């Protein structure tokens, strides 16, 4: 479901594209207005030494004055010199924990004599505002949209939750050490797919937010919030912020010809090398905002008169993921790493029409041994350029 801009009878809502400025002191008025419009708010908050997503009851729940420092296998929170509300990058959670929960009941079957009936799961479609969605995450949500509601089969739970989201994006004012959204063409600027987009501006005593309206429902929650119209200086500052972030990416990934490069190097010796380091712990797939693989299980009550079917996140790094009656197809860790990376960066194009990677860097940061997929792509590219032969016996 690539969502087009919301259109009224006469074209886009007149407020779409409108830019205003919200003072820091009035930020809580924005939260109050969102809540008054009927949304619960979820967003970034500090928990267990990381910035994760959770309920936001007051602006003090936000990571005020915190930032994060990220490198391969490393994530640390640090205090900022200022009181920025959004002065950090993405943490271990992504919005998929709301749209595609890690465990979800699909239905309950009730036995009735020789037959049974199915109770569909009631849709959890409480209107929810996602506060602080970064550009890479907007892109990730749209990628999962294509998986769950963009094909012939529509996932009803995902669709119900997705249609009730008020998406409040934030343009990153700094890049993290493992970020490479510029390479993937997903950020750091948010161009569409949002209801409101915020850009935080802190200069001396000035602390305010440029607010851009992306949809009619975005415009609605701004009614009654004290704003002043943005002037040319405000817009120039926003553009400069995004430009500065784009120039300070911690990583790059050369996308040029990547589909044919990776699918043409299934026997590259690098798969064996990275497989020696990879623990198959599944962290990368859990932290990835687009990884959608899941498994299902049936849970009967004691007399099996009632059976629930649940789905839960699964990972291509698990041995059982590819199990057939003859055993698993991908018995080795190199074959599983190859499956993950070639899927993410290459065969995703064949399956869903885009890359499965948005350049958020989570898989690099949260890998316990610091495997960096941008470095893996470079290694394979360099092997290809050197015409390096495959490892003896191939990979897998």
């Amino acid at each position, binding site marked *: 479901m690539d969502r087009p801009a*919301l*259109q009224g009878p006469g074209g886009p809502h007149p407020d779409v594209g409108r830019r205003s400025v919200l003072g820091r002191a009035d930020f809580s008025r924005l939260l109050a207005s969102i809540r008054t*419009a*009927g949304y619960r708010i979820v967003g970034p908050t500090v928990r267990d030494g990381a910035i994760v997503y959770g309920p936001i009851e007051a602006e003090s729940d936000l990571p005020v004055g915190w930032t994060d420092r990220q490198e391969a296998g490393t994530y640390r929170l640090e205090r900022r010199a200022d009181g920025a509300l959004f002065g950090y990058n993405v943490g271990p959670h992504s919005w998929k924990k709301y749209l595609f929960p890690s465990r979800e009941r*699909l*239905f309950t*079957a009730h036995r009735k004599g*020789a*037959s*049974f009936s*199915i109770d*569909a*799961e009631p*849709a959890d479609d409480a209107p929810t505002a996602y506060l602080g969605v970064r550009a890479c995450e907007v892109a990730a949500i749209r990628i999962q949209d294509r*998986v*769950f509601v963009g*094909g*012939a*089969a529509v*996932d*009803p739970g995902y*669709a*119900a939750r997705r*249609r009730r989201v008020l998406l409040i994006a934030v343009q990153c004012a700094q890049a993290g050490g493992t970020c490479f959204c510029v390479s993937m063409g997903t950020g750091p600027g948010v161009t569409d797919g949002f209801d409101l987009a915020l850009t935080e501006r802190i200069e001396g005593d000035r602390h305010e937010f440029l607010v851009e309206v992306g949809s009619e*429902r975005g415009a*609605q929650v701004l009614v009654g919030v004290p704003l002043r119209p943005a002037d040319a200086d405000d817009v120039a500052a926003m553009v400069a912020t995004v430009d500065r972030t784009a120039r300070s990416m911690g990583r790059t990934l050369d996308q040029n010809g990547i589909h044919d490069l990776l*699918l043409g190097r*299934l*026997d590259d010796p690098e798969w064996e090398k990275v497989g020696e380091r990879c623990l198959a712990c599944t962290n990368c797939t859990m932290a990835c905002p687009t990884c*959608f693989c*899941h*498994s*299902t299980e*049936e*849970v*009967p009550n004691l007399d*099996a008169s009632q*059976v629930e*079917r649940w*789905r839960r996140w*699964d990972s291509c790094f698990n041995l059982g*993921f*590819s199990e*057939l*009656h*003859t055993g698993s*197809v991908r*018995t*080795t860790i190199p*074959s599983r790493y*190859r*499956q993950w990376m*070639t*899927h993410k960066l290459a*065969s995703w194009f*064949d*399956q869903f029409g885009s890359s499965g990677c948005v350049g958020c860097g989570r898989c690099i940061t949260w890998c316990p041994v610091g495997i960096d997929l941008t470095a893996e792509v470079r290694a394979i590219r360099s092997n290809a350029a050197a015409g390096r032969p495959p490892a003896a016996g*191939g*990979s*897998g």
Partner: protein
Amino acid sequence: MSTLPEPPGGAAALPEPPLAPSPYSVVARTADTVDTATLVLRPLATDACPPFRPGQFNMVSLLGRGEAAISISGDPDRRGELVHTIRTAGLATQALAAAAPGATVAVRGPYGIGWPIERARGKDVIVIAGGLGLAPLRPLLYELLRHRDRFGRLEVIYGARTPGDLVYYAELQSWRTRTDARFQVTVDAAGREWYGDVGLVTLRIPDARFDGPNAVAYLCGPEIMMRFAAEALEARGVRREEIWVSLERNMKCGIGQCGHCQLGPYLLCRDGPVLGYREVGPLLRVRGL
């Protein structure tokens, strides 16, 4: 909540859950081999089963014991019954293969893309099956035999490890009496009581009766068997784009969303399970893909 504008598409009702199964009742069970049984199912909630194309599969479950992807093995023209042949592999298939008449089975589907039967019109047809690979080919055989005049020669080669591993044994006996098709049955190993052929299916291909450049081949069995059979067919002049294979991978959803059934660029439940050998042949040569 009333202040929320509706998203694009308005307040249209959400689609029916695609993952909800329908109840079926087991009306007959035949033990094919020591670990494989064929179930005949009747729908309990409807008069007829949903139409299917040969080569498609269902997700089948003895509720509470887990779900498995099982190809449909019955006659597509017999809409009142659904036939599945199930080999015991894990807990879900163990429960299904043991299901007795009267048991309730949950079924959803059909899913996937079946055999491109129309490509065989006016051409010789070779059907090669290994072991339980005959199960997804049987609906195709029913269609081919029903419309026998639309095709050229029909050559079927079926192999199994031992005589005890052959499925649809009685039906094989009757098919072998036909004069409008040749059914060759071979096993890898047999005792003295077997007086049929012994040897790999690939060894039957050089002498099979078909005109290679004017033939279409449908294959299902172990991947290694399909690879070597395809090579033998190509050696007989069968064009690579006329060789079709049905592949097997772990499946959880059947609708292209769970990610389990990937083979390179393909989601087998959505893009397969039947695919062209020209496309997947190179992928079958990569270990652990």
